[in-house]
């Protein structure tokens, strides 16, 4: 039977109807809440396309069961980070560097980097590459992504 659960997403309290507590957070965000920032890439936690923040940490929402998240935790998606009108420094840097080809992976690139930059405010190129080592891009946009993260860090 359908159950109800409260979550805190992008600063707002939301109520979720669900049946299976094992349902990954990704489907709650995309299908229940219509947030398309987090993307389905593998469902295995291998590619990073689904990355969101939970209490500021970058996590793979495709392997995060709904049962492990509660309303005291702050879930933030790419939409919560900024908007086209008011972009986050990273989003602006990705636009400035044109650091997108198909852009399917870019959610994970930005969310992973945003969490990383709070810990390491002035990273080297190699530190950025290591921080993004488990985020996959197939188009080969890597150099631009590294430049964008560097640019955002310089402006922080």
């Amino acid at each position, binding site marked *: *039977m*359908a159950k109800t659960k409260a979550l805190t997403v992008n600063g707002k309290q939301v109520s979720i109807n669900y*049946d*299976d507590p094992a*349902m*990954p957070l990704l*489907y709650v965000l*995309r*299908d229940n809440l219509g*947030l*398309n*920032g*987090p*993307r*389905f*890439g*593998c*469902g*295995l936690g*291998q*590619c990073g*396309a689904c990355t969101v923040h939970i209490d500021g940490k970058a996590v793979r929402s495709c392997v995060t069961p709904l049962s492990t998240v509660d309303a005291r935790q702050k879930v933030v*998606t*790419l*939409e919560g*980070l*900024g*908007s*086209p009108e008011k*972009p986050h420094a990273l*989003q602006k840097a*990705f*636009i400035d560097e*044109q650091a*997108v*080809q*198909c*852009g*399917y992976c*870019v959610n994970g690139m*930005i969310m992973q980097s945003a969490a990383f930059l709070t810990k390491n405010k002035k990273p080297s190129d*190699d530190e*950025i*590459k*290591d921080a*993004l*080592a*488990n*985020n*996959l*891009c*197939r*188009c*080969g*946009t*890597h*150099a*631009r*992504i*590294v430049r964008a993260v560097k640019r955002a860090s310089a402006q922080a």
Partner: protein
Amino acid sequence: MNIQISRRDALLGSGALIVSFSLAGPSPRAMAQTGTKPVTLTEVDSFLAIDKTGNVTIYSGKVDVGTGVSTALRQIVAEELDVPFERTKLIQGDTLLTPDQGKTWASLTIQIGGMQLRQAAAAARQALVTEAAKRLGTDQLTVTDGVISGNGKKVSYGELIGGKSFAITLDPKQPVKEKAPKDYKIVGKSHPRVDIPAKVTGRFTYMQDFKVPGMLHGRVVRPAAIGAKLESVDHSALKSIPGTVEVVREGNFLGVVASNEWDAIRGAAAIKATWSKSETLPDQAKLWDHVRATKVVKDEVTSNTGDTAEAMGKDGAKVIKATYDFAIQTHGSIGPSCAIAEFKDGALTSWSASQAPHDLHKQLAQMFSLPLDKVRCIYVEGSGCFGRNGHEDAAADAALLAKAVDRPVRVQWSRADEHGWDPKGPPTMMDMQASMDPQGNVTAWEGTFYMPQQTPNGFLVPLVAATLSGLPAADHIAPGNVFQDSAIPYKFANVKTVCKRLETTPFRPSWIRTPGRMQNTYANECFMDELAAAANMDPLEFHRKYLDDKRGLELLDRLAAFAKWAKRPSPQKGSSGSVAKGRGISYVKYELVRTYVGAVAEVEVDRSTGVIRVPKFYVVHDCGQIINPDGLKNQIEGCVMQTVSRTLIEELKFDRSHVTSLDWETYPILKFPQMPEVAIELIDRPNEKPWGAGEPSAAVIPSAISNAVFDATGMRLRSVPYTPAKVKTAMQAA
């Protein structure tokens, strides 16, 4: 210019100027040289429309697969029409609205699609200026931002069109004069991509995000083996999953439909299906023996000059031979394929990220025995596909499920679906031989390339769902055009190149970025390097010696300067230490008729682990007129990174029944810490035709790496990918 009331004004609203291709003339499809039968564009023929407010709608059959061409195509049209970029919009890949300009493939979107749009825009501008001349009483006119001025008066495009409708028919035999490149203000500039702000803020609607009212979610339960028959189905476990609506079984096609996505996923996992044993695949350990033993159905001679046998048999001729192979690879889209289908009043609408909506249109019509006008395919951009991946198959899955449940159905493929069931880049093997005279001059060259056959109409990859369900399907096996670049640009006295077209290949073959051209160029350019070493010549000089193409020679000279190439033969002398460093060069003139690319790779080979690193690539690129320099660089960077990955680590694994590389652990791709630095020099030729750029630079990457490894270590790697195990084996043999 023939102006008449358009029959299409119902579609475009009242008041518009529409530019179409002549229905009687050659179709753009024929100009695209796709090798398929040209279709008459009787239903959908418009390229662009200008409405009474002066806004321009571009109808493009070529689609943006994440390369940025939607920005570039708008630049071309805005430039040619003299309207602000912002007043243009693009509708792409809708079989009801856009012309069939052929698949979005082979780096032809700008070269073919863009140039058709440029002609259409030039024709519209000419017609509007002619009208304005009558209205303003002078032919001394200037156009700025969609406003025509002269004689102290001005009139806008919108005012000229007013509430009336005009149709202009293009005659490809009488091209309209286009704007002089020296007057360009928009083309040639790095206009920012229009899609990026939405993509980086989660507001872009990918196919994977697209929704249709009332849609259900479907998943397909895949056979345990390729060719397996469905013996029994137990779906009793679905009772505990409240959202599951229906199990659909048709032949060997098995799927489940649910009211929500997660229930479709767990529903598909809960179904217990029994499949017959099927072992159709060869032993992977003996793949190349299998390829060599496969029946050849055609010898396709792609070049034949002089008499190679005679030259090779001459006294004193030194004959050099080498065999190369290139692994089976997968597209590896980061977002697995996704599609939605809806049957309504006997007609099918399919939304997908297919690179070829007009081809999918024909395939779905065939599959469901529907007339073409009862099928509409609409493109919605998805994750980058790099060729024909699973998008079309997801579209067929969705259509089959939607028909069965009589509701719109969305099918999102899983990672295992994508890795396991998208069509593959076929295994390709190349036998090379050449002869040299005692002075080290090449006297003959022979290349023999083993690749799947190209059957008539072999540009349509059969749809998995049609095959599994037993519905009508095209019975093709082979990707067309993979013979390209088997012939060489070098002027040897005796040359023969032959493509051995094979009757079968282990997996459904299709095209992955630079299909055939990559494999063929790999063998040709590695073998050039082998001959340069045999002649004890600097490899770049060796290329120059046999090239008589002015643009090609200029490119090589600029590459030598750009990469600070030091002239000397390979391998370098005195290489010692645990990490060997070297440089390698490669060159291509794409398909021998268009984009020129030269590349220099710098590599490091760890002698103890066998791991190859590629710290840097230099690329010099000449694709004629550049539309958007930054967009072009983005494509070249992507070609390098993706192809370094394919060269070093990518190989599809399989057992006798099925693919076993079903995720990113078992089919890894290159990651950030291994990324090369890419230095690019663009040669812009504004007065030349613009050629394609999505593929050509990928062609030279594997050979540049191989040649650099030889330069570093003196060993030849001839089997892609260059895994540490292969490197170690080669080092022991060297």
